[in-house]
């Protein structure tokens, strides 16, 4: 099996699997229980909190666990809407965000907020000055992802947020860091963000757990109410096994960020080089992009057809983002791809386990697909 869909989810690492199962077997108590068993569970949660805080170079009080990045994004957006958003009704974001950012904003738009979607310019990239100039005195929130999940493009948010914070110190800056965390060298400070969303299952941890970083002094109001866990920000019994698994995964991978990054660069450069000579195949490049994600356009073959063809040969890729499940990608459109290219673009996303030989195999199968499938594509057009 060749798994090139690591941006959708990753295979949990052995350490995480062990931590989850250990917690389920032996540390299954409720962290809010006053007795010693409860304390043990609470300590497991807090030690994971510390590890994650350390990986962002911040304090453990700033980390709040959630059920995943979707919840973190929702919490960040709705909380800001409830605090500063009571007086200031404008939200600035980009047109290439994940649905878990775009949908909450769409909901707020229906409820009296104004949203500005900054688009990539002609070169297909987002200009930091465009984000900054979209912000004004009436803005409550700026939210951008660090790494685009469909193309790997790295947004210049660090620069943009720095300028925004200087001009409008009260604006809340939020970063959806899911595809950047543990893959690029980031810290809470370097992102200049008040709020940062993280996910467990994109970094070899379990599903069902994520976190929201909240800068000290920034007020977060809950979206769901109950027992007051996570300092009242996110009620609901903590998912101790998932949280423990998340912590262990971060610990296991936080030291190898640079090493893995180098390896990914080799892989993605290799892919780029090898496809240069193949007619009808193009790796879409940006000036700043994450080597973990590659967007590949294969002319005249529908991405879904190619996906299933590759799958028959044991290669797993995705068409656009896994979350959009075959819908036409608005993100690629925003990047200026024409309809035909959107239809025939697939996403490859790598992990430390992928090898060069797998890329050779991928290219071989794409060539086979071109030989066998082109007709189908042409007929449809």
């Amino acid at each position, binding site marked *: 099996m060749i798994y090139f869909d690591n941006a959708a989810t990753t295979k949990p690492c052995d350490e995480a699997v062990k931590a989850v199962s250990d917690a389920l077997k032996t540390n299954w108590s409720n962290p809010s229980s006053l007795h010693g068993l409860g304390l043990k569970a609470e300590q497991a949660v807090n030690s994971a909190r510390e590890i994650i805080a350390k990986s962002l170079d911040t*304090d453990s009080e700033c980390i709040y666990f959630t059920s995943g990045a979707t919840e973190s994004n929702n919490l960040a957006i709705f909380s800001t809407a409830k605090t500063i958003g009571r007086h200031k009704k404008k939200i600035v974001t980009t047109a290439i965000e994940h649905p878990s950012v775009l949908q909450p904003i769409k909901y707020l738009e229906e409820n009296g907020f104004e949203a500005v979607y900054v688009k990539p310019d002609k070169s297909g990239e987002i200009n930091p000055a465009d984000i900054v100039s979209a912000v004004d005195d009436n803005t409550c929130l700026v939210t951008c992802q660090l790494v685009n999940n469909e193309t790997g493009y790295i947004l210049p948010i660090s620069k943009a947020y720095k300028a925004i914070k*200087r001009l409008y110190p009260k604006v809340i800056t939020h970063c959806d860091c899911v595809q950047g965390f543990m893959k690029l060298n980031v810290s809470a400070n370097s992102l200049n963000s008040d709020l940062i969303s993280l996910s467990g299952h994109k970094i070899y941890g379990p599903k069902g757990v994520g976190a929201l970083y909240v800068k000290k002094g920034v007020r977060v109001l809950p979206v769901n109410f109950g027992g007051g866990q996570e300092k009242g920000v996110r009620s609901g019994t903590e998912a101790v096994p998932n949280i423990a698994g998340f912590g262990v995964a971060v610990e296991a991978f936080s030291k190898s960020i640079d090493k893995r990054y180098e390896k990914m660069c080799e892989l993605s450069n290799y892919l780029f080089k090898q496809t240069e000579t193949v007619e009808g195949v193009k790796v879409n490049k940006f000036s700043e992009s994450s080597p973990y994600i590659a967007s590949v356009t294969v002319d005249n073959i529908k991405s879904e057809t190619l996906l299933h063809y590759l799958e028959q040969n044991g290669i797993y890729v995705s068409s656009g983002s896994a979350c959009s499940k075959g819908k036409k990608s608005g993100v690629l459109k925003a990047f200026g791809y024409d309809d035909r290219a959107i239809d025939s673009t697939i996403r490859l996303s790598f992990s430390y386990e992928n090898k060069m030989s797998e890329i050779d195999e991928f290219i071989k199968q794409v060539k086979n697909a071109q030989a066998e499938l082109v007709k189908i594509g042409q007929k449809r057009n």
Partner: protein
Amino acid sequence: MKEIILCKYGEIALKGLNKRTFEDVLVKNIKRRLNQLGKFHYTRSQSTIYIEPLDDNADVDKAIDKLKKVFGIAKISRSIECEKSLEGINNTAVPALEDTLLGARTFKVETKRADKTFYLKSPEISNEVGGMILDAYPHLEVDVHAPDVVVLVEIRENNAYVSAEKIDGAGGIPIGTSGRAMLLLSGGIDSPVAGYMIAKRGVVLDCIHFESPPYTSERAKLKVIKLAERMAEYTGRIKFHCVPFTKIQEEIKNNCPEELFTIIMRRLMMEIADKICERDRIQCLVTGESIGQVASQTMSAMVCTDVVANRPVFRPLIGMDKSEIIAVSRKIETFDISIEPYEDCCTVFTPKHPKTKPNIKDVEAGQAMFDFKPLVDDAVENTFCEFIEAKR
């Protein structure tokens, strides 16, 4: 561009012949805090410690965060080192101030010419540098009364230093220059603040905590340790004494008059703490009491507790209101820990109507209804000690 951190001392500068001793301790304390952050070179002159990062990995931002918590430093500035000439300042410092100056509308330049041999006088230097800044950043205007940014130029022996912001240091005098104290640490809001304030005057801190399982929980003790960890960011390593207190509290409850529970308990705590001080050669006791805050902190109550101690009992919060205490506890980031809701030893057997004006004779008579001496000796004997370090 080379950045350098300048730490200016506060009152140490005023010391006479002892000044050097204070400086030595301060430098030692600073070194201890910064040693994990990379290699630094330390020099001192003219009541300032110059901290120069020696390798590129040395984290200046973090170093400043740590320095903000070192007692004895009044002001910290992050300066750009440049050649001691107007050209040097124009070429190195003016571009390096971009981050600060782009966010400002008005500015002024102040100059300190410690090196009196420099060919321009302070106001002349200010004028020249102000002109350079205006040329480089045309959006700025000069405002000498209420500027957004004050650019400070210092002409010193070897180099010029230019900085655009002064950060407040922790103040006080260096830890280790004023003896050693034992703080009674309960887990509430006040005691960590009292510890911080006494440490600010250069005192090395020990903490003593009384635990009464099963009336108090493991979490209550962990909370107190967390408080000590936070205090240790300012005070350095803390020796933590944890006294088993269950038996004594039970006997007070069983034998003494209810209205005197709290006062007798506090006297016994003082007695135990005093004995440990005697053993460990600690000079004084410190509590977080403030007059009249609760029944056990009235003037009469404090008179009754003080008599059992054979050394001074310092109460740095004595004249402060709760709101003032809370403000400090937020500043030193102990507040959020202090308000975690666990039972502590003081809240276990609170009487319904405690006596607010106890009379020493009544209290002594009440306490004499049971022989606490063996229990006190036991408690001292079984006190558990550990060292607590700052975690961040």
